[in-house]
């Protein structure tokens, strides 16, 4: 039952990633063929600091960064866990792997969220 819920969350996270990562790819990498205002509001490249600051100020970008971070970490790390479990390790190894993967996910989520939040507050204050 627990794995069934986790699998359903895996699929739901995939749907979120499909939309948000698709948008991210278009804004950050396909600005030349799909020009969106958010890509290069100050000209140059999407990764130029002036453009990064404009996006970092936006509540929409801050919220969707954190949402994408959480969805992608869960989707990717749960997928990795399933692949590793196919080798049919013992129960102790499965618990250790699950704990390690969960810890990595939580640490990266906290670090990424903190970076998004600090970037947001610094850009707003600038």
């Amino acid at each position, binding site marked *: 039952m627990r794995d069934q819920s986790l699998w359903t969350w895996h699929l739901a996270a995939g749907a979120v990633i499909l939309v948000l990562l698709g948008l991210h*790819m278009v804004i950050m*990498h396909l600005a030349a063929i*799909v020009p969106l205002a958010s890509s290069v509001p100050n000209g140059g490249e999407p990764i130029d600091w002036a453009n990064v600051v404009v996006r*970092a100020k936006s509540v929409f970008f801050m919220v969707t960064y954190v949402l994408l971070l959480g969805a992608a970490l869960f989707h*990717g790390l749960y*997928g*990795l866990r399933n*692949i590793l479990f196919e080798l*049919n390790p013992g129960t102790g190894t499965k618990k250790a792997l699950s704990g390690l993967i969960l810890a990595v996910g939580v640490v990266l989520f906290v670090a*990424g969220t903190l970076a998004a939040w600090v970037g947001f507050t610094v850009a707003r204050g600038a």
Partner: protein
Amino acid sequence: MIENKGRPNRLGVVGWLGGGRWGFERYMYTLHRVTGLGLLLYFLLHIGVTASRAFGEQAWKTAMGAVRGPIFTVGEYLVFAAFAFHAVNGIRLGLIELGFAIGKPIEPVYPYRTSVDEQRPLAIVVMIVAAILAVVGGFGFLMK
């Protein structure tokens, strides 16, 4: 916790990759995994690099300067192509999981028919759409 009590993966790592005679969709499954693991690896590194913006303009410029150049551009394009395949194939897997595009259940009357024949057109459409996205994205990367 998943317990595989019936038929454990005795092939081990080979069982992860090998499709044997299981057909085209089995190799799409392998490609889905390979692209998924590649995207995960890139994503974990990406979090570290992009978090540099929290430390200000200079830290951001230093981080971006470290990942600039033709090798990184090719690498980023491969990430984009992997995303294109993984996303479109993920939609196919979701549709199949929900019971779409697999045909209606029929009586098992000889000569038996396989639902693979019903699923194959969607698999071909997925490969075509992923290829189109990869080519269009390629132009986007070339024009950067």
